[in-house]
């Protein structure tokens, strides 16, 4: 991967802080977006499809 640099001390591969933080933000935003769609959306169709999941994860549902 381009962002990986040779680390002479550990002879391992180190990821740059920029790509690590970018990946973290991507994971956080994408995860939150999907969580919103399944557990929080007020769309009736999404509510009905995810109904039992919403109750099971104890999120406010109705």
């Amino acid at each position, binding site marked *: 991967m381009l962002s990986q640099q040779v680390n002479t001390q*550990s002879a391992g591969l*180190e990821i740059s802080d920029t790509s690590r933080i970018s990946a*973290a933000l*991507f*994971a956080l935003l994408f995860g939150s977006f999907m*969580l919103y769609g399944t557990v*929080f959306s007020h769309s009736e169709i999404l509510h009905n*499809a995810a109904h*039992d999941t919403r109750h099971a994860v*104890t999120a406010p549902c109705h």
Partner: protein
Amino acid sequence: MLTRFLLAAILAGVLAGVFVTAVQAIRVTPLILKAETFENEGNETKTHSHGNQTDVADHHHAEDASGIEAWAPENGIERTLFTLLTNVLVGVSFSLILSAGILITKSQLSFRSGLVWGLCGFIAFVLAPNFGLSPELPGMDAANLVQRQIWWFVTVVATSAALLIFAFKQQLVWMLAGLVFIVAPHLYGAPLPDSHNSIVPANLAAEFVIATVVTSFLFWLVLGGALGWLVQHRVMNIDGNHASQ
């Protein structure tokens, strides 16, 4: 490597979602279906409806603003498959959010540390919000939905921040700030309904609380453990070293 890390997170989420669908089938889903029979009976008495409501568990066929019944999966295999799908989506969502914390704090993962991350997820996403808003069964009275969702969200974010502070900042000032983050949402108070009238019997609600909390606990342990194991054995850890070697 980051791509492999994120793929491991997605896989762990899928595994946890499939696992929890099976566990929910033991206690959680039967209790939801049972509560819906009371809810539907209640609705029938309320509206004096003598319609063709033959399906006792059709609570989730909610109507939209125009009064037209919105689509909902049919009870049985279709409903179960949609629950499986949404459990997997929720599993992947939680796994990605957990991974964001692991990446930001540059933490090393193993099976055991993964379990600890999972336990923290359980505290932040289940224990903390449920201390204010008990798990709801269909048919139970509750306060305004948006207000409850906002309180749930703020409590989860504040508790997560507090746990990260406790784990990574040892100074007293930070610890006190973490304590404030944990306590503040509960001092403010969760939005509660004016009355606790419920057409669902109280013992059913009590059983549901334990069933969801235990099921969620197992879900978070499997999620954290699977994520830790996969990163340890199939992905290089964040500093580039194989943790398993």
